[in-house]
C-alpha cells in the first residue's frame, strides 16, 4: 500500500518527529509564557518540515507563515502587552497530584487514540496511488489546494472569510475595552 521510502527519508522523518515531540514536551513544562511560546514555535517548524515531507508543500509553507509567523507572534505580543513575562508571576502550574492525574488521563487518552487509530481505513475512498502526483503535475503545489478550495468548498471558504471578519471585529471590540463603548 504505502510506497517504499528511502532510508534518508525515514531518517529525516523520524528526526523531525522527535524534534517536534521533544519541543512539545519542553513547551508544556515551561512556566514562562515566552519560553513556552518559543518552544511551541519550534514544534511548529518541525511539523512544517513533516508536511513538506508528506507532499503537502503548500500546507507546510502556510504552517510556517500562519502559525509560527502570525499566531505565535500575536501570543508574544499579548504577553508583552500585559507584561506577563516574569517567571515570578507564573507559579501557575497545578500541584503534583494534579499533574499526576493529568499524566494518567493523558496516558489513557493516548492509548485510546492509538486503539482507535488502528481502525481499518475505508477502501472505497482511497484515491489512486499517483493521484496526488498527477495533481501536482497538473496544477502545481498551490493549484492542488486552490482548485478544490475554490470549487468544491467555495461556500465553506466564503463562510470562513466571514468567520475571520467576525473574529477581527470581535477582537477589535474586545481589545478596545469599555473605554469607547461605555463612556
Amino acid at each position, binding site marked *: 500500500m504505502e510506497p517504499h521510502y528511502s532510508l534518508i527519508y525515514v531518517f529525516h522523518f523520524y528526526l523531525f518527529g522527535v524534534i517536534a515531540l521533544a519541543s512539545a514536551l519542553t513547551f508544556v513544562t515551561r512556566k514562562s509564557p515566552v519560553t513556552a511560546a518559543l518552544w511551541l514555535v519550534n514544534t511548529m517548524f518541525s511539523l512544517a518540515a513533516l508536511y513538506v515531507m508528506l507532499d503537502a508543500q503548500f500546507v507546510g509553507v502556510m504552517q510556517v507563515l500562519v502559525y509560527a509567523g502570525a499566531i505565535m507572534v500575536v501570543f508574544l505580543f499579548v504577553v508583552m502587552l500585559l507584561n506577563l513575562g516574569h517567571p515570578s508571576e507564573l507559579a501557575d502550574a497545578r500541584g503534583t497530584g494534579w499533574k499526576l492525574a493529568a499524566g494518567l*488521563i493523558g496516558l489513557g*487518552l493516548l492509548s*485510546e*487514540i492509538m*486503539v*482507535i487509530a488502528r481502525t481499518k481505513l475505508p477502501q472505497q475512498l482511497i484515491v489512486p496511488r499517483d493521484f496526488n502526483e498527477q495533481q501536482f503535475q497538473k496544477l502545481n503545489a498551490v493549484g492542488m489546494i486552490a482548485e478544490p478550495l475554490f470549487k468544491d468548498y467555495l461556500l465553506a471558504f466564503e463562510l470562513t472569510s466571514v468567520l475571520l471578519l467576525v473574529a477581527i471585529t470581535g477582537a477589535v471590540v474586545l481589545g478596545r475595552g469599555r473605554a469607547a463603548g461605555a463612556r
Partner: protein
Amino acid sequence: MLLQTAVSAASQAHPLSGTIAEWVWLLPILPLAGFVINGLLSLAGAHFGPTDPTAAEHEHHSEGAADASAISHAGHGADGDDQHAVKRHRWAGVVSVVGPGVLILSFLLALGIWQAMASAQPAAPFIQRYFSWMPVGDLHIDAAFQLDQLSMLMILVITGVGALIHVFSVGYMRDDPGYPRYFSYLNLFVFFMLVLVLGANYPVLFVGWEGVGLCSYLLIGFWFNDKANADAGKKAFIVNRIGDFGLLVAMFMLFANIGVLDFIGVSAKALDLGAGSALVTTICLFMFLGCTGKSAQIPLYIWLPDAMAGPTPVSALIHAATMVTAGVYLIARSSFLFSLSPVASLTVAVVGAVTAIFAATIGLKQWDIKKVLAYSTISQLGYMFVGVGVGAYVSGMFHLVTHAFFKALLFLGSGSVIHAMHAAYHRTHSNEDAQDMRNMGGLRRYLPVTCVLMWIATLAISGIPPLSGFMSKDEILGSVFARAQGSTLASATWLGIPGSTLLYIIYAIGLAAAFLTAVYMTRMMLYTFHGPARTGTEEEEALHEAPWIMTGPLVVLGILTVFGGWLNLPEVITGIIPLGPRELLAHWLDPVVGDATTRIAAGAAQVPASTEQALIGAAVVIAVAGIVFAMTRLKPDRLPRKRDAVPEHGFEGVVAHKYYVDEGIERTIVEPTYAVSRSFLWRVIDNGLIDGFFVNGSAALARGLGWVGSRLQTGNVGIYAWVLVVGVLVMLGAFTLR
C-alpha cells in the same frame, strides 16, 4: 298525558282495569303535592320573614314564650329553625289544611280502590307501568306500581293511620316555628312509604325504602340545632344504609342469576334459583340484612331508640306504625324467595325472637317514656319477624296492622302526656325532663282520656283477649308451634340445630317476651298515670288534657285497637265464641302469600284444636301473670324523682345502659375507623407516603439533582476543562471498548 297513555296500554284484561284502581298513581302523588306546597311555604316564610337582626336577637334570648318545639327535650332551650319563634308560622293556616288534607284525600281514594278490589277479587296483581326508568340492555326497570292485596293492606294502614297522625300533629306541633317544614317532611314520608308498598319491582321499592329513611333522617333531626337530635338522625340514616347495602346486593344477585327484578318475574323464576340452594339462601339473607336495618332488628336495631329524638307524632307514624314495618312487608312481599330457603326463614325467625326478648329486657329499665315504647316497638317487630320467618306471612302482617293501631295509640298517648308535661314545666320555667317517668306519676287525674286509651293499648300489646294485640300475637305463637310440629322448616337444620327444636325454643322465647312485654308496659303505665304525682305542686295546676284535635285521633285508634282483631279471627276462637267471620285477612292475602305459606307448611300436621286452646290459655295466663307481677312488685309511690335517682348497679345497670351496645360499637367500630382514617390513611398514606414521598419526593429528587449539578458549576474554567477531558476520555473509552 304520558301517564294516561301508558296506563291504558299496560292494563288490558285485568279485572281492576277501568275501575278507580287506575287512579292508584294519585295515591302517592297527593302527599307529594303536599310536600311541594308545604316545602315551598316553609322556604317562602323563611326567606321573606322578618330579618331585623335586633328582633331576632331578642327572640333568641327570650326563648319563645310558647315554644312548643322544645317539647321533646324540655329545658334544653332548643328552638326551631326560624327567627320569629314567638308567633305561629305565617302560613300555618294553609299548612294545617294542606298537610292532613292530602292524606285524608289519599285515604279516601285508598278506600275507593279497596272497595273496587274487594268486589273484583283479582287473583293476579294489578300492574301499572308508567314509564321506563332504567332500560339498559336486558335490564328493564320500569317505573311501575303493583296493586295487590298485600299493598292494599299496607296502603290502608299508611294512609289511615297516617291521616290520624297528621291530624294529631296539627295540635301537637301547633306553635312550632318549623310547622310547614314538619308537614312537608311528613307528607314526603307518606309519599315514599306509598312508593315502597306500591312499587312493582325491587328498585322502585328501593326508592321508597331509602326515601322513607331520608324522611326519617330529616324528621329525627327536625330540631336540628340540638346536636343530639342531628346525631340521632344521622345515625338512623347510616345504620339504615348498612341494611340497604344488603338489599342492594340481594338485587344484584337476583339480576345476575335470573335477569329480572320485578316481583312477578322473580316469583315466576324463583324456582330457577333452586329450592333450598345456597344461592337463594344468600339472596334471602342479604335481603334480610336490609330488613334488619329498616325494621330495627339485631344487629342494626341501635338507631331506633335514638330516633325518639324526633317529634312524638313522627315516632308514632314512622318509628312504630309504618316505616319500621317495611322489613316485614318486604319479607312478605318476597315470600316466594324466603319460602324457598328454610335456612333463611329460620334465620329471620331466630333473629326476630332474639330481638324480641333482648329489646324487652332493655325496655324493663328505661325511664324515658318514649324509650320504653321504642324498645317495645323493636320487640314487637321481632314478633312480626318470627311470624314471617316461620312462613306465617298472614300472621306477621296481621300483627303489623294491629301493632300499627296500638303502638300508634301508645305513642300519640305519650305525646299527649309529654305535651301536658312540657306545658307544665314551661310555665314554671323548670329544666326538668318532661319525658322521664320519674317526673310523672298520677297523671290519670289530669289526662283521663289519654289514660284510659293507653291502658287499652297496654292490655292489647300485653295480649289480653279480645283486644287486637292478643289475636295477632297469639296467632304468631300458634304458627310457630304448628310449624314445629311439622313443616319444611322443622325438617331443616340451622347451624346444626334441628329446625323443630329451634322452633320450640323460639316459641318459648316468644312466651317469655310476652311476659316481659306485659311487665314493662304495666310498669310504664303505673309510673306514668298512677301513684303520687312527682311533677311538682306548681306544675300540677298546669297539667291538662290535650285539645280535641289530639284526643280525637286517639279515640279512633283506641277503637281500632279494640276491634282490630276482628280482621283475622282465628278458627279456634270462632269455634268457641262466634264473634264474626273468621280469617278475613288470610283470605284477603291468600292470592299473594298463599303459595309461599303452603310451600313452607308442607307436611304440617294439623294441630288438634284442644292443643291450640291450651296454647291460647297459656298465653293469656302469661300475659295476666306479667301484669299482676308488675302491679304487685312495682311501687310507684316510692319512686324518687329523676334528680334524686341513684344509678343502678350490677346487671340492672347493664340493662339500664342497654347492655352497653352503643358504647361498644362506638369504641370498636366508629372510633377506630375515624382514627385509622385520620391518622393512618390520610396523614400517613395520603400525605406521607403518596404525596410526601412519591409526588413531592420526586420533585425534591429533581431539585436535589439540580442542586448537585449546580455545585459542579464552580465557574472555574480549569475545572471545566478537566470535566470536559474526562468526558472525552469516557466517551472515547466507550468507543474503544465497543
